[in-house]
């Protein structure tokens, strides 16, 4: 019929084409020039899962676990993703908290953070909370349960040495070292945990997962090609002997002081005790802050690492070194003797000696084994006044240099942080103290380990390594291998042999034999080990405390240093017990028991009674608590005074400002009136 084409056919076709064209244009712009949709799509559909790898475990020298991990859960919040219609009631019910608590935590989170960032809402959820939350997790958009590992100390030992971890603080986050951390991350705060943070921490992994509209994670996004795999923290192998450490801590119970035992051939630390100890499991998780402040308030200061930070006058334990320097500079020969009759009177003040019988200081070995004060005071004076030196000032400097090379008066470089330096006096220091007018008599006490000389127990033990090795040491350190690799670059500095100022082997032999005499015939008899050559030196260090401006002489520190066996030494040890009395009475037995335990793996019946006595002894003096409270009161007074001063300054400034302001107003009004 109508075979002629109708023009309206084209109108309709044109409408079809026109609409399709508009559609295509719109699609073109929507899909190619509106990147916000891509961002939005990724925002809603891609779930960034941060995976915390397990922190490296720490093992002892025999592969026994000291510190490992166990999983726990944290609840994280991204405030922006929490919808306005959020079911607070169900949420609070799942976590078993009330609404006020929810509001207050949320308030804190918002203050601390911008709302697009994920931050912790609740940490360390209990098993019950975790289970109930997981059941209902899809109801709570914006929240996310993150699995994390918490540290577990297998035994409550070596807390200060292993250290502990805690959340990074906002102050720390500002530092470049912590640039890769985020709020809520954990980091080592002391001990090995801090020192080896980088290797223990491993590398956080980020997994991108697709999620559906119920916020449930689904498949990996793009098959996981954008994911970064987490890298587990590396394992640390220590030289520390778990059993030895535990035994030493038991022996040191109820005593204030420390034990440091080092393997002289490697510099590896076999045991390090700072007593009183505490259970490091207290310093993790939720209770850390609370327990920390409690430990901090203890009068006996368990958080103070006495092994590396406490500085004691070494007392007689320094005598081998006084002798070593005197012999080496040529001030005396091993045969040199001094006619001590119970005191040293060459200087104005007399120095008492324990021994009166003739010949107890007839030669070097006899003098050391009897620990003659007169002899060592004298040879110290002979050293610094030696003819080869221009004056006592140069003489003291030479002596100082020797001590510096023994790592005295400086940090040894041990691999836990906050090591103390100790103090070795030098010419400058005495020049300042005595206004340059001093001589060898002024400083004579240094020769017998008193006076200005202060050492840490670690330095004393390291000193034993030097004598045991006849002139060299390796920097004392805990870590034998990082991730089973003993040649890790971080450990390179501990593989370096430090040779002390050139002292010939014979001189060391002399000193070693003298120290062997100490055990076999002298003051250190308690350290004897059957069929083994043990070298040791006792020490009884006088010390004072300053309380309310008064100098009070306190009971002596009990000191003991030793190494064994003399040939091919395997252990060097230093024990210091505060205000306990004679070195031979307390420090000596503990040192000998620890050595015996390490070398022989058991305590002979002969020493059982001694062991029992040491385990039971309580050597913490009552006045420790008194002094502590006095000191704390003093600190509080100083603090209060400071606050008061600031307050007064503040109000004065305010009053001044007000005065100036009023004057300005008055002037304004006056000039206004004039106009």
């Amino acid at each position, binding site marked *: 019929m109508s075979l002629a084409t109708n023009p309206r056919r084209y109108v309709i076709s044109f409408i079809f084409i026109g609409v399709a064209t508009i559609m295509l244009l*719109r699609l073109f712009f929507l899909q190619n020039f509106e990147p*916000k949709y891509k961002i939005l*799509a990724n925002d809603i559909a891609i779930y960034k899962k941060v995976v915390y790898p397990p922190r490296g475990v720490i093992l002892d020298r025999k592969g026994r676990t000291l510190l490992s991990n166990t999983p726990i859960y944290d609840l994280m919040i991204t405030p922006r993703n929490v919808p306005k219609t959020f079911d607070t009631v169900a949420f609070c019910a799942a976590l078993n908290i009330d609404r006020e608590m929810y509001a207050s935590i949320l308030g804190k989170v918002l203050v601390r953070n911008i709302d697009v960032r994920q931050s912790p809402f609740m940490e360390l959820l209990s098993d019950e909370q975790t289970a109930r939350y997981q059941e209902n997790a899809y109801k709570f958009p914006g929240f996310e349960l993150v699995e994390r590992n918490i540290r577990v100390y297998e035994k409550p030992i070596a807390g200060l040495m292993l250290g502990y971890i805690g959340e990074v603080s906002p102050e720390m986050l500002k530092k470049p070292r912590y640039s890769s951390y985020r709020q809520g991350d954990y980091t080592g705060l002391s001990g090995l945990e801090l020192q080896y943070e980088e290797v223990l921490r491993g590398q956080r992994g980020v997994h991108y997962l697709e999620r559906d509209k119920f916020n449930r994670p689904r498949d990996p996004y793009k098959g996981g090609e954008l994911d970064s795999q987490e890298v587990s923290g590396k394992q640390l192998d220590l030289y520390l002997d778990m059993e030895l450490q535990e035994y030493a801590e038991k022996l040191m119970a109820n005593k204030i002081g420390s034990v440091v035992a080092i393997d002289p051939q490697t510099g590896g630390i076999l045991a390090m005790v700072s007593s009183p100890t505490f259970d490091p499991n207290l310093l993790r998780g939720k209770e850390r802050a609370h327990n920390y402040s409690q430990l901090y308030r203890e009068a006996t200061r368990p958080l103070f690492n006495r092994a590396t930070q406490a500085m004691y006058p070494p007392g007689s334990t320094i005598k081998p070194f006084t002798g070593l320097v005197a012999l080496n500079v040529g001030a005396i020969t091993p045969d040199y003797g001094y006619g001590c009759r119970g005191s040293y009177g060459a200087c104005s003040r007399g120095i008492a000696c324990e021994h009166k019988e003739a010949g107890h200081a007839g030669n070097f070995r006899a003098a050391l084994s009897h620990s003659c004060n007169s002899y060592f005071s004298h040879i110290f004076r002979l050293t610094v006044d030696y003819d080869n030196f221009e004056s006592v000032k140069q003489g003291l400097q030479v002596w100082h240099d020797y001590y510096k090379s023994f790592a005295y008066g400086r940090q040894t470089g041990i691999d836990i942080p906050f090591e103390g330096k100790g103090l070795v006096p030098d010419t400058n220091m005495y020049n300042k103290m005595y206004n340059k007018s001093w001589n060898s008599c002024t400083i004579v006490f240094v020769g017998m380990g008193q006076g200005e000389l202060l050492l840490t127990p670690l330095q004393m033990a390291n000193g034993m390594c030097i004598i045991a090795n006849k002139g060299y040491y390796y920097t004392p350190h805990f870590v034998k291998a990082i991730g089973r690799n003993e040649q890790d670059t971080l450990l390179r500095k501990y593989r370096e042999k430090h040779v002390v100022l050139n002292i010939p082997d014979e001189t060391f032999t002399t000193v070693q034999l003298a120290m062997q005499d100490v055990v076999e015939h002298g003051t250190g008899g308690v350290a004897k080990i059957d069929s083994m050559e043990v070298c040791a030196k006792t020490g009884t260090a006088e010390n004072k405390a300053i309380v309310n401006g008064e100098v009070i002489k306190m009971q002596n520190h009990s000191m003991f240093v030793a190494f064994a066996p003399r040939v091919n030494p395997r252990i060097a040890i230093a024990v210091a017990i505060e205000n306990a009395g004679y070195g031979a009475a307390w420090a000596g037995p503990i040192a000998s028991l620890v050595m015996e335990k390490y070398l022989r793996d058991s305590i002979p019946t002969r020493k059982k009674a001694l062991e029992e006595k040491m385990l039971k002894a309580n050597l913490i003096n009552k006045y420790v608590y008194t002094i502590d409270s006095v000191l704390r009161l003093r600190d509080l007074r100083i603090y209060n005074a400071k606050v008061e001063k600031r307050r007064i300054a503040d109000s004065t400034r305010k009053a001044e400002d007000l005065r100036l302001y009023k004057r300005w107003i008055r002037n304004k009004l006056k000039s206004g009136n004039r106009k």
Partner: protein
Amino acid sequence: MSTLRKTLFYRIDGIVLLLYLMLVTIGILAIYSVEHRSTDTSLFMMNKSYMRQVIWLGYSLFIGFIIILTDSKFFSSFAFLIYTICIAVLIITIFAGVDVKGSRSWLGVGSFRFQPGEVAKIFTAMALAKFMSLNETNFKKLKNRLIATAIALAPAVLIVLQKETGLALVYFCFFLVMYREGLPTAILLLGFGAIALVLTSLLVNRTTLAVLLTVFAIVIALLGRQTLKRKIAPRIILISVWLFSLLFSQVAVPFVFKHGLQKHQIERIYSMIGIDVPDEYNKALVPGEEKKERTNSSEYNVLQSKIAIGSGGMLGKGFLNGTSTKNQFVPEQKTDFIFCAIGEQFGFVGSAVLVILYLSLMLRVIYLGERQRSDFTRVYAYCVACILFFHFAVNISMTIGLAPVIGITLPFLSYGGSSLLSFSILIFILVRLDADRQVLIR
């Protein structure tokens, strides 16, 4: 007459059939991509929509085959009868319908459900074609025009009564068919103009609209100033149209909304065009009280849809990599928003290919219509083209934010048996009729 001698199957239009099969395949793949999970163990899982869609395709092809074998005169002969039955079913549905999301447009027998409104288009198209091709019908007469309009709109009214407004709007596409058959251009323009005016009065700020209307009137006056100078009638028409528009949008609409309509009525009107009720008509709003959280989800749907399509980019994220559609962020993504799956996974290139496929199909159908000997087939072909066009234009436009969200499907792609089956029947009847294009069908 040479073509008649060729067998029936040889006379079938291959292009339409090919386009149809391409679109259906794309649809099943799109549904599959939305539903696929990496944990799926087997491709053939009967509880999945894509498998059900495959089964529906089977039914459709079977029915299509039967249609091909049917005598072409059958459709014109029974057009009115089927149309009457259809109207009756629609009326029954109003009362006996199953309540689905507030509308009663579904008939249920056991677990089987179907939507008569979806199928009614076919029979309306046939009835309209039949009426227009009657020898006694003179489409220049107003009476016949009114009858044609009644045939086209009767199902729409019934469907509105079923509260399925989106589906009812489809029937307005028959005006385009009537335009082809001789309806004056003015009526078409008037219709478009009225729709545009109502929509803009609701959507556009009132002052802006007044300025726009005035500018529009001035532009028309400038373009037609020769005519306006010579004759008085166009001047009056122009001025009165302009005045009417102004009055309607500035006075009538605000007055009706503020004083005439109830709160729920206003809400329904606005939710139908897919936007929030403006504050000035929001009767729930007491001064000083803060605005309530939105309950209308169509804005959310469109945003998610735009995110999915917009994030596709030029080439798309790749098959099965659509993070938005795969993980169910887009609501109704298997049915009304299936286009998102294409846009997200295949980007602009894929979307453009799809748009061009639809356009080709529609233009091919028009071409088929124009080569017919009989008016019945031509009108029917135009009906098919216009139904496809309406569905295609509104559905894709709503997914990309160009049109309000009304629930109508994308032909051949959207998941759903009623939709696939009715569009298949629509196409197959056309193909059957076209095969007999040299025969005069009345």
